[in-house]
């Protein structure tokens, strides 16, 4: 395991243990709803469902169709804010 991946594993563990991961998740969810990302994504989902059929749609279908668009649509301001918090955490709990 490389140094970086060990690093990453350590950090992730710390994030989870300190509850910061959960807080970051909640923050992201709130920000995405606020900026309308969720509504956009829901509209996109409707299209996918109408295309594939209401009865036949699976979770896999949705994940494959929706996730790439979801990543692309996250606004820069939201990304910036989350990154800032992550960096702060890394600098505070680096060791």
């Amino acid at each position, binding site marked *: 395991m490389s140094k970086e991946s060990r690093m990453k594993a350590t950090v992730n563990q710390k994030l989870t243990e300190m509850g910061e991961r959960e807080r970051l998740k909640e923050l992201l969810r709130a920000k995405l709803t606020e900026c309308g990302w969720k509504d956009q994504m829901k509209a996109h989902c409707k299209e996918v469902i109408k295309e594939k059929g209401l009865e036949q749609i699976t979770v896999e279908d949705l994940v494959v169709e*929706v996730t790439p668009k979801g990543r692309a649509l996250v606004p820069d301001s939201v990304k910036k804010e989350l990154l800032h918090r992550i960096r702060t955490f890394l600098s505070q709990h680096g060791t």
Partner: protein
Amino acid sequence: MKMEEVSMSSLDNSKLEALAQDILSDLVEDACLGLCFEVHRAVKQGYFFLDDTDQESMRDFEIVDQPGLDVFGQVYNQWKNKECVCPNCSRSIAASRFAPHLEKCLGMGRNSSRIANRRIVTGNNNTNNKSESDQEDNDDVNDNDWSYGAEKKAKKRKSEKVTIPPFNVQHVYYLVVFVHSNKSM
């Protein structure tokens, strides 16, 4: 199995930045997955398309924006020019004035009793002018130096209702005394 913790001071800034981006990426992925699960459940439980309305209903309830109508399409100044017949005096009254008119006509509102009281007072004054005046009433007037009328009742009266009390015996007496005193000077 405890993993060997690596100090981050050994990493340079670009690696730190990459790590932060990685973590962000994980979080975004998490959010997307969460959304997919939410949507999928809503579809299978049948409530995903619940808030959609068909085009026809949308047209039915559209906001109305015409003059003379409110947003529901109802006429709102319908009663402006209508007239009603008063059941008491059988006069034709405008609709917006009807309620106050009824109040006075039937003698039932807050103001109608005040108006009635006023009328009683001025009614008394009018009858005094015609017949012999009551001595007790006018004694009060004479106690105020030469002032007539207004001090009898504290209420303000409209100009046309001001009545000059009659020149009575007591006034004549004072006048005589006054003249007499001047004469003697």
